[in-house]
């Protein structure tokens, strides 16, 4: 048992924090939001140069190597800085899924483009009636020639408007219930996007597939297990970003109550607010514990251990992000509900976190499914 970071991990953490502190202030955040697809090209290029876009990609495939713990480290730093660029949805998650692509040639080509920041992709798995369950899949893949044709609709595919390709889950009916993953270019005939910005930053699209052809070498091996593992990784990294945001907005709240006066005394002198701060800190620390657990289980552990840990973390961080974001705004008072202060932007970021990748109920149920009664 060892909760300490390696010296490489410490370096990664410190360099990420230093870069973001120096280069990603509230003005850059606004510039990024104003950029096409909420992604500032120069920032993205910087990520590529740091090698961050290749975390989790083996060095043999041009990546930086590293595991889920490294991903957590970078995402936490990005979350703390309110970064809007689609680091997870556009690069990290697609790259991880591509590691199981059937075609080694395409894999090499695409990973190279992703890691270099020349191309982005996106995962499209959620559906309107699925309510966060990746096992729900009404998009079908019907055999056609040596490949398939995809038909149906996906909802809220994060970063799809910036993507060259979508990674799509589809049911290879008949027989129904066999979910596979396919890589499809966004300009494929029959594929239409309805794009929109999302609350808290970033873009997404609802996607319609109308007999979209997909080649057999564009299938990702592992089917629903690969999808579930990919989404678990996304949840972990997303939760790490939420942890960074919670920590940052908590520190800002601490600073604010120390200086702001009401009734002739600093807010920090009011016991009710003091206890509120203590309660925020409690949830922050407990969130951190579960994220570390989920990271370790993702980096090395059985699938069941990973599922229990990731779903537990998602439930806990969801609750914590609610408390911390709401109380950060409440303790800031009027200024907290304005666009002018960053606190409200952290609030929206943390609110959006709760709406993605399955609701509280889904993950509570899932956590218990993978917890033995011993």
């Amino acid at each position, binding site marked *: 048992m060892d909760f300490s970071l390696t010296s490489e991990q410490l370096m990664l953490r410190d360099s990420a924090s230093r870069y973001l502190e120096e280069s990603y202030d509230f003005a850059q955040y606004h510039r990024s939001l104003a950029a096409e697809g909420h992604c500032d090209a120069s920032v993205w290029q910087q990520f590529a140069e740091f090698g961050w876009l290749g975390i989790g990609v083996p060095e043999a495939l041009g990546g930086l190597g590293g595991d889920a713990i490294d991903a957590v480290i970078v995402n936490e730093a990005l979350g703390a800085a309110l970064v809007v660029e689609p680091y997870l949805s556009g690069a990290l998650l697609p790259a991880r899924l591509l590691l199981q692509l059937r075609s080694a040639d395409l894999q090499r080509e695409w990973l190279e483009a992703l890691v270099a920041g020349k191309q982005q992709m996106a995962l499209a798995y*959620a559906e*309107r*009636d*699925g*309510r*966060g369950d990746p096992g729900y899949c009404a998009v079908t893949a019907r055999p056609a020639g040596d490949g398939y044709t995809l038909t149906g609709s996906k*909802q*809220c595919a994060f970063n799809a408007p910036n993507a060259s390709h979508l990674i799509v889950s589809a049911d290879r009916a008949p027989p129904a219930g066999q979910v596979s993953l396919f890589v499809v270019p966004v300009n494929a005939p029959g594929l239409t996007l*309805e794009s*929109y*910005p*999302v*609350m*808290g930053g970033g873009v*997404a699209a*609802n996607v319609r597939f109308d007999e979209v052809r997909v080649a057999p070498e564009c299938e990702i091996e592992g089917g629903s297990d690969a999808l579930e593992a990919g989404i678990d990784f996304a949840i972990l990294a997303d939760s790490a970003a939420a942890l960074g945001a919670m920590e940052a907005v908590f520190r800002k709240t601490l600073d604010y109550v120390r200086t702001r*006066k*009401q*009734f*002739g005394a600093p807010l920090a002198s*009011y016991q*009710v*607010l003091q206890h509120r701060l203590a309660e925020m800190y409690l949830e922050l620390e407990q969130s951190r514990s579960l994220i570390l657990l989920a990271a370790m289980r993702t980096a090395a552990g059985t699938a069941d251990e990973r599922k229990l840990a990731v779903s537990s973390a998602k439930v806990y961080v969801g609750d914590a992000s609610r408390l911390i974001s*709401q109380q950060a*705004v*409440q303790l800031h*008072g*009027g200024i*907290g*509900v*304005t*666009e*002018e202060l960053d606190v*409200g*932007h952290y*609030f*929206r970021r943390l*609110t*959006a976190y*709760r*709406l*993605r990748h399955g*609701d*509280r*109920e889904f993950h509570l149920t899932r956590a218990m499914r993978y917890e033995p009664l011993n």
Partner: protein
Amino acid sequence: MNIDFTPDEEAFRAEVREWMRQNVPRSPEAPNFGIPNDYELNRAWERKLADKGWLAYSWPKAYGGPGWTVTQRYIFDAERALAGGPPISPFGVIMLGPVLMKFGSQAQKDRYLPAIRDAKEAWCQGFSEPQAGSDLAALKTRAERRGDRYVVNGQKIWTTHAHWADFIFCLVRTDADVPKQQGISFLMIDMRSPGIEIRPIRTIDGHHHLNEVFFTDVEVPIENLVGQEGQGWTIAKYLLVNERTGIAGVAESKRQLGMLRKVVAADPARASDPAIARRLAELRVQLLALEYTHLRVLDLAARGSPIGLEPSVLKIKGSELQQAISEAELEIGGLECLPWLTDVSGSIRTFKWAAERYNFLRASSIFGGSNEVQKNIMAKLLLAQH
């Protein structure tokens, strides 16, 4: 003790319901509880109510109101909300009206009340300042007497709809040499006066409701002082009690929860989720409790019983419930609530606006006396009881 409405009250309800059915503007689903974003729609609606004589619905006949009982007002407001009618702007009707009736001169009543009642002049409220939020008595905007005018300098903040208003009623400091609550006066100021500048504040729901209002040597005729110099704090407390009683927002919460229940019932995936069913049930129980607490307070008020803790109860529980309902909309909507300030085809209206509403409603536990300040007030009253 009985909870039934009389046949006359039921007839009144039917009349209001029918009128609302015919007159509530299209596109009734303002994204935010209680705060309309559409100026034209809102003014047209208030003019329609005024034409019917129902805008100043809480006023006695002596001032041109309908002279309704507490129960009738309750029914009116419930039916208005149920039909999706935008709420009536509180600044003139709910806040300033009763203040002028109680503290205003005859000339002030004659000049201002008819224009409120007839939707001819819109008001906004100038209480909060950058360094005087929950601690209102710390306000610094000063009004110096020069002959038959006051000269006002200073700044107000969080001024809802200042950009729509013809007038603002302000708390100003007229005497800096007395303890802080005693030097405050209540002043009405024409928003077209030279020296007034409005700066919009965008809020986290992505809209413009709030403003800063700057006063630089703004001249105000002394006849715009309400009550006496130094009486401002007393007047403000009177006004805030009225504000907080109304702020429970039971009618809006009832409408929002009802719509959410319908949306869920119409969607098989959500209708079969026991966690959603439980959540709606919990909200329904909270709403029922608040509804009858509200009625009990109205009943007390109708009897002229002294009001103490009740406005704080309604403010706290009302704002918590509004926030809880909007949070349920958001979380039940899930991914459908993520598109931001944009239209996505096929989206359900309740979910389309849930994110804006959720963001907007964070303010409900902050403004109008934060819930923390309300609890301070409650504790003080509770501990003072023997």
